[in-house]
């Protein structure tokens, strides 16, 4: 219960946010805002969970999309198997969701146990290497995954608790609830003592170890939780596209997620969400004019990284802090006179 009292403000904001999202989705009689927001939910969960590693713990992972794809594939494969849906009937969607999260979590324990001991450069490229391993498994195991075609033929979604995920309104609300719930979990984790332990490890791992923190274990827990949340993003995208595709496990997906974080703001909790929205809009706009989207996105990334050197919300935050400080300084001066 104390959790609810401690986070009542955040819970209230989350609830209001959820109501607004649902109102947008159900109130506007057009599929575009729903589709747009659903794809943002998926991308934002990937980016926000990655930011738990990059922004809060200082672990720069270049292979996070592997968990995103794995979640989507587990979910899709389970629901496509007639034996699974036959045995569980109405319960198959929730069970598949839980199985996707737990399965990804178990996989990330193995990967994480190897990777989190390493310092940042090694960590970055080992996570990349394991991601490409998963990608090549998905591509070569054609019988199970459909190879480069992805999971084809649609994904059956039996009705459960009166929720019919084949209906676009039901699906949108379901995805919105999943998204807000995951964001809330991350909020609680990053604002709890555990979250401050993560920040301490990021700032000075040696000192954290001196203070009795089991650095490897804390990093591993963070890695597993963030991977599991990324898998929920994959599940949302699987529901949305009614399929799963190997590109989700490709390195470019991870690079995109890293850029969303960087673009939106590294040190602001909701920064990655803004990054996801901006990048998605940018992508859509560029696509209207040219098929060479990559070159444009590449140039934009260069500009943001070498020019701005921080994300949009970081920029706003710094500006705000500076303004506050200038005001305080002015007040002090006035007081002295």
């Amino acid at each position, binding site marked *: 219960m104390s959790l609810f009292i401690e986070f009542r403000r955040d819970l209230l904001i989350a609830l209001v946010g959820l109501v607004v999202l649902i109102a947008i989705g159900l109130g506007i009689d057009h599929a575009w805002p729903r589709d747009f927001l659903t794809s943002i939910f998926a991308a934002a969960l990937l980016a926000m969970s990655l930011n738990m590693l*990059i922004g809060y713990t200082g672990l*720069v992972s*270049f292979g996070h999309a592997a968990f995103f794809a794995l979640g989507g594939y587990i979910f899709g494969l389970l629901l496509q198997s007639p034996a699974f849906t036959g045995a569980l009937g109405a319960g198959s969607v929730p069970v598949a969701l839980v199985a996707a999260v737990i399965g990804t979590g178990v996989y990330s324990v193995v990967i994480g146990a*190897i990777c989190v*001991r*390493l*310092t*940042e*450069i*090694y960590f*970055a*490229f*080992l996570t*990349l*290497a*394991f991601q*490409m*391993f998963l990608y*090549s*498994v998905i591509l*070569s*195991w054609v019988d199970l995954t459909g190879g480069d075609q992805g999971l084809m033929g649609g994904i059956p979604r039996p009705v459960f608790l009166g929720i019919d995920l084949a209906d676009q309104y039901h699906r949108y609300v379901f995805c919105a609830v999943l998204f807000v719930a995951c964001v809330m979990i991350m909020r609680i984790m990053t604002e709890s003592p555990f979250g401050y332990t993560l920040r301490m490890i990021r700032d000075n791992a040696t000192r954290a170890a001196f203070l009795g923190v089991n650095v490897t274990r804390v990093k591993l827990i963070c890695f597993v939780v963030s991977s599991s949340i990324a898998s929920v993003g994959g599940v949302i995208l699987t529901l949305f596209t009614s399929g799963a595709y190997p590109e989700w496990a490709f*390195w*470019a997906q991870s*690079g995109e997620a*890293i*850029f969303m974080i*960087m673009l939106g703001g*590294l040190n602001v909790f909701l920064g990655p969400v803004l990054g996801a929205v901006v990048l998605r809009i940018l992508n859509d706009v560029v696509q209207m004019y040219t098929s*060479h989207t*990559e*070159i444009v*996105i*590449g*140039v934009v*990334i*260069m500009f943001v*990284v*070498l020019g701005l*050197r921080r994300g949009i919300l970081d920029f706003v935050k710094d500006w705000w802090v500076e303004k506050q400080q200038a005001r305080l300084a002015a007040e002090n001066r006035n007081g002295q006179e």
Partner: protein
Amino acid sequence: MFDFDALAACMSTSACLVNQATSGLIIGMLLFLVASGVTLIFGVLHVINFAHGSFYMVGAYFAYTAYVVTGNYFLAALVGAVGAGICGILFERLIISRVYGQNLLMQLLVCYAFILIVDDLVKIIWGAEYLAMGIPAEFRLPPFRIAGGYVPPFYLFLVAVAVCIGVGSVLLVTKTRFGKIVRAAALNAPMVSALGIRVNIYFALLFGYGCALAGVAGALAAPVRSLTPGMGLGILVESFIVTVIGGMGSIPGAFLAAIILGLTRSIGSVGFPLFVDGAMFMIMALVLIFRPTGLMGQGEPR
């Protein structure tokens, strides 16, 4: 998934053994050239060049065009190497040098952006289709017969070039004035520049040399592999595995690890074709667990 009968049958005939060993060796040599560039750059500049695969691709495409134009493969290989080297120097001066000493995230992002841009540029200039150079005219000779197996002359040329370059790289870093300055600058750049040496130029040259190695690998790979935009990433990941297994910063280690991986690939393609990638990752995981500094890495902490 495993086909041990095929593996045993191959192991028992010298012809198959020779064929697999040579194809493993050329894969290994290409990996070695790319990985030694990564290792050299990391050893001195302490940045991981995540865009190294792009220079491999650029080298291959340059060599392809030069070969189509001139018809001389040796000239084409030179064009590939020098072209990749020049691109590398430009990349270092204009982009990567701006994020030296910054956090890894920035380095990763600029490399990501660079890969996106180069891949798209290659698509615009050369098209998205697969290109094949074919064995160059100079090497269209009857293959050598060794213990029942056939070894194309180009393979011998490839291995010889790679070994010479490997030895040359070690000598360059350990024996020459250039190598000494670069190693000194890696330890203490302000001190070296206080002695009146323009450190930035040396860093850029070393970066360019590392990229030229990738370019040579691309030029050597062009006759035996098909060219496609995005070909850089596959070799990048494998060369990372090589540097991890061999030990970061060690060129002999990269050589040993590249041969191990090359043989794993070629022999694995007979015995367990679907598990070749898995086997490479297993080797890497084992090395990381039992010998975290790599086979020949210095005992520095990571």
